[in-house]
C-alpha cells in the first residue's frame, strides 16, 4: 500500500491576480522504503509537490492521501497532527535554530508534540547520523555537512512514515553531498520510510530508486529501477 498517493492533484496559485498552475493533474504513488528523486527545472513544481506531500498545503483539486488520510479533509489542527506523526522535513539550507543546541534542535519536534523521553530519542537519531558526542554544540560550531546531518536527525526523530527533502545537498560540496545522499538512502532502507527528494543533481538522481521528472507542473516521466 502506498504511503503517499496523489490522485489527479492540481495546485494553482494567484500571483498578482494571475492564476499560475503549479501542478497539473498529478497522479503518483510512493511506497514505504522507496527513495524517490523529483527532478526538473526551477519552477516545474517540485517544491509544491513536496509541500502537498508534507501536508503543508492543500491541493486545488484532487486528493493527497498520506498514510490513508486525505489531507484536504483536515483543518489546520488536523494537518499539524498529521505532520507531527507522519512527516519529516529536510531543507537545503538546513533550517536549524541557531539559538538551540544540536540536542535541542533534534528533540524540538518531539517537544512540540508533547512527547516524553525526547532527549533519548534525539541521542539515538544523532547516533544514526554519526554525530554522537556533538549534541551540546550550537549550529554555528558545525560544518555544513554536520548541520545537514542534524537536519536529517531532526527529521527522523518522530520516526516519520515519509521524509521530504528539498535540495538536501544544494548547499554542500560534492563529496559531502554524496555522503549525505548515501546516508539518506541507507536510512530509508533501514527505517522502511519513504523519502521524496527534490533535486537538480544528476548524482542524486542516479542514487534514487525512482526518478519523477516534472515539466510545467506535469509528470513528464517516471523512471523506476
Amino acid at each position: 500500500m502506498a504511503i503517499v498517493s496523489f490522485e489527479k492533484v492540481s495546485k494553482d496559485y494567484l500571483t498578482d491576480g494571475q492564476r499560475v498552475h503549479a501542478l497539473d493533474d498529478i497522479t503518483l504513488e510512493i511506497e514505504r522504503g522507496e527513495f524517490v528523486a523529483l527532478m526538473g527545472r526551477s519552477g516545474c513544481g517540485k517544491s509544491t509537490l513536496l509541500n502537498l506531500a508534507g501536508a503543508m498545503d492543500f491541493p486545488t483539486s484532487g486528493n493527497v492521501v498520506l498514510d490513508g488520510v486525505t489531507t484536504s479533509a483536515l483543518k489546520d489542527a488536523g494537518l499539524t497532527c498529521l505532520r507531527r506523526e507522519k512527516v519529516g522535513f529536510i531543507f537545503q539550507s538546513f533550517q536549524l535554530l541557531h539559538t538551540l543546541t544540536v540536542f535541542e534542535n533534534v528533540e524540538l519536534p518531539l517537544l512540540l508534540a508533547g512527547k516524553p523521553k525526547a532527549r533519548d530519542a534525539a541521542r539515538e537519531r544523532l547516533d544514526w547520523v554519526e554525530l554522537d558526542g556533538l549534541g551540546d554544540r550550537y549550529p554555528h560550531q558545525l560544518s555544513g555537512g554536520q548541520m545537514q546531518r542534524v537536519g536529517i536527525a531532526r527529521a527522523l526523530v518522530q520516526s516519520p512514515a515519509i521524509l521530504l527533502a528539498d535540495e538536501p545537498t544544494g548547499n554542500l560540496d560534492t563529496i559531502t553531498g554524496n555522503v549525505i545522499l548515501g546516508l539518506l538512502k541507507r536510512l530509508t532502507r533501514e527505517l522502511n520510510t519513504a523519502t521524496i527528494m527534490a533535486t537538480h543533481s544528476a548524482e542524486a538522481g542516479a542514487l534514487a530508486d525512482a526518478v519523477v521528472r516534472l515539466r510545467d507542473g506535469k509528470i513528464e516521466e517516471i523512471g523506476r529501477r
Partner: protein
Amino acid sequence: MGRLFLFYRLMIRPLLKEPVRAALTIFAVTLGVAVVLAMDLAGNAATGSFRASMETLAGDNDLEIVASGGVPEAIVGSLATLPYYIRISPRMEDSAVLADSNQTLPLIGLDLVAEANADGGGRALVTSSDKTFETNEDTIRQLQKADSIWVGASLGKKLGDRVRLLINDQVREFTVRGVYPDSNGSESAVVMDLATAQRALNRFGSVDRILLNVPEPPALDEWEQRVRAILPTGVEVRAQGTGTIENRRMLAAFRWNLQLLSYIALIVGAFLIYNTISVSVVRRRPETGIVRALGASRNAVLVAFLGEAAFFGVTGALFGLPMGRLMASGAVKLMAATVESLYVSSRPGAIALSAWSVALAFVIGVGVAVVSAYSPAREASLVSPVEAMARGRREYKTRVHKSRDLLLALVLAIAAAGASRAPAMQGKPVFGYLAAILLVAASALAVPAFTDAILSQSSRWLGKVLGVEALLGSQSLSASLRRTSVLVGALSTAIAMMVSVGIMVGSFRETVLIWMNDRLPADLYLRPAGAPAPDRHPTVSLELADKISKLPGVAGIDRLRAYEISLDGMPATLASVDLSAFRRDNQSSFLSGRPTAQVLAEIRDSKAVLVSEPFTYKHHVRAGDSITFSLGAARPSFRIADIYYDYGSERGTILMDRQTMLRYLPDPTPSNLAIYLMPGTSLEAARNEILQASSGYRVLLASNRDLRAEAIRIFDRTFAITYALEAVAVIVAVMGVAGALLALVIDRRREIGLLRFLGASAGQVHKQILVEAGLLGLLANFAGLALGFALSLVLIFVINKQSFGWTIRFHWPVAVLLGAISVVYAATVLSGLYPAQVAVGLNPLEAVHEE
C-alpha cells in the same frame, strides 16, 4: 534630489510596508513630544506667566508701597504733600465670593475720586495694562455709595443688578453700577470704592498697597530713595510687580520639577527609537553590505540610518504639536488647582502655542530620535560588506560586553550616590536629578547582564513548567539579548518612574496623615466660607468667636490669625496661635523632637517664633538663628525657637504667639478658630450649637475628621498630574514592547515558519509570543522595582528635600504598587496579542522559502 529619492526607496519605503510597527514608533515619539510640550505650555500658562489675582487692574505703575498687616492710610497723605507730581493709587486687595455661584474673585478697593481726577479732572477711572475705562461724574457719585460695585463684563451682569457677595464671614448685597471689559475673565474682579472696601472688610485706617506712578527723570532708584525717606519703619517701597516676581520665583521649583517629570516619557521614547533603529540596522544588514559593496561610503550609511530616525522624529513632532496643545488644556487646570491650593491664588494665563513651542517640539522630537539612533547607526556604518552577511555576530558582541557594562553600571551607581549627597544649586536639585539620570543609565547598562543571567537560569525550568513554547520564547529572547535588553531597559525605566513616584507620593501621603494627627488637635475648626488659598486669609467676626467660646460644651478656642508677608524676596505666611487659650497638644511635631508644651512655652508672649520646615529651606535659617522683618510700623527681630514639620503649604510660615502679634498688628479678628470641646461632649450636638450660633455668618465648620479628609483630597488632586505623566510613560513603553515584538516576529518569520514545518500548532506559536511578552514584562518589573526603589530614595531624600524642604518618612505603598505593577504587566502581556496573531498568520511556506 537623487539622494533623497534613494533615501526614500531604501529607508522610508520599507517602513511603509510595516505600517503598524512604524505607526507605533511614531506614536511613541508623538506622545513623548506631546507631554513635554503640554507641560511647557501649561507650566507657562499656570506659573510662567503667573499674575497674582491681586494684580488685577493694577495698571502700569512704577513703585508700590507695602507693609505686613497693611500700610497706614496716613502715608497717602504724606505722599501727597511731596513736592513732586506723583500719581498715588491706594488699594484694598482681598477676595470676595459670589454667594450665588461660589465663584471667588479679587476684591479691589480704589480711591475712585482720586482716580477719576487723575488726568486733571478727566474721566479715567481704572487703567489696566491695555485699557482705560471711561466714566462720568454721575457714575463716580454712584460708585461712592456704600453698596456700589463695578464688575467685569464676563460675569454677565447688567447695571442695576443686585449681587450678593461673601466677604470674610458676612454676605452683603451690592448694586452693579458699572461693567468693564475684562479680557474674557482674565481681568475679572469686584471693584469698589476704597472706603466701601474698608467697611466691607472691616479694616479701617490702612490700605493693602499704594501704587505710585512717577515721572522720569530721575531714575526709579532715585524715586525709591525719595519715597523711602518719608516712610515709617516697617513700610517698604519697591518696584511694582515685585510680589509677582517673588511668586514666580516661588513657583519656579514646582514648574521645574513638573517639567523634568514630563521628560520621562521622552526618555522611554528614546529607548524605543534606539530599539527601532537597532532592529532596522540588523534587518537591513545584508542590504547595507550590498549598498556598501556598490560604493556607498560609511558616512552615507550613518546618515541614512540617522535620517530614518529623523523621519520618526519629524513625524512624531508633527503629530505631537496638536496633541500637546490639547493635553495642555487639561494640564493647565490641574496645575492651576495645585498652585491655588499649595502656593498662591492666581489665574492661569492663556495657552499660547508660540513659534518657540513649535521649535521646541521639533528640537525635542528630532533631537531625541537622532541622538538615540546614533549608536546603532554608527555600528551599521562600521560593518564591512562581508561582515554584513554574517549572522549572529552582533549578539555575540553584546554577550562579550556584558561584564564591562556591568562594571560601568557599578561606577555610575557610585557616582549617583556621590551626586545625591551634593547640595542644591541655586535652590534647584540639579545634582539630585543628575543622580537619578546616573541611576537610570547604570540600570540600562546592568540590564543585559541581569537579563542574560535570569533567562539562562530560567529557560530550562520555564520549559519544564510552561512547555516547549516557554523554552523557545526564553531562548529567543536570550539570543536577541541586545534587543531584549533595550526593551527591558525601556519598560523598566517607565516602571521605575512609576514605582519611585508611587513610593514618594505614598510616603508623602503617609507622612501627611501622621502629621495631621499631631497638628490637628482640636475637635472642630471654623473658617469663613469661600475657597481657601494659602495667600488668602479672610477673617471671622470677633463677636462670633466670643459667642462660640462661651457655648456650653466648648472647653476653649484658639484664635488663629495669618497675614501675607514678604521676606528676603520671597512670599511667606505670618501666623499666630493663642497660647493663653485652652489647648490640647498632641505629640511633638518639631524637628528637635522636644515636647510640644516645652516648645510653646518658649514662644509664649516672647520675641521667639517657630518656623516651618519649608521656611528654613527657603530662607536658609536654623533653630537659634534670628530673623528680622517688617511688622506693622516696626521692624523687629525674632529668635527661631524651633522648627516644626509643615506639609500644609510650601510657602514657609513663621508662627508666633497671638499676644506678640497683637503688639505689632493690633487687629484682633482671627482668620480661623480651633475649637476644643469638653470631655464627654457630643461632637454632633456641639456642631449644631455652633452652627446655630453662627447663623447670620457665612462660615464653614469642619470636624477634625472632615478636615483630614479634605486635606487628603487636595493632596491626591495635587499629584493627579504626576500620575498622568507616569501613565503616558508606561503607555509609550508598552506600545514600544508591542512594536518590538512585532519586529521580532517579522525578523523570525523563518524560524516561526520552520516551527510549523516541525509540527508546531498555531496555538503553540501564539503561546510562544505571549510567553516572550510575559517574560519581557517580568524582567522589566524586576528591574523596574529595583531601580524604582533607588530612585524613590533620591526623590524623597534629595530632590524633594532640595526643592521644597519637606521631610518625608519612607513608606512602601504596597497595595498601590502591586496594583500598578499588575496593570502594567497585564498590559505588556496583552501587547503581545497582535504580534502573536501576526506570527500565527505567517505563511510557513513563504517564510521558509524566502531563505
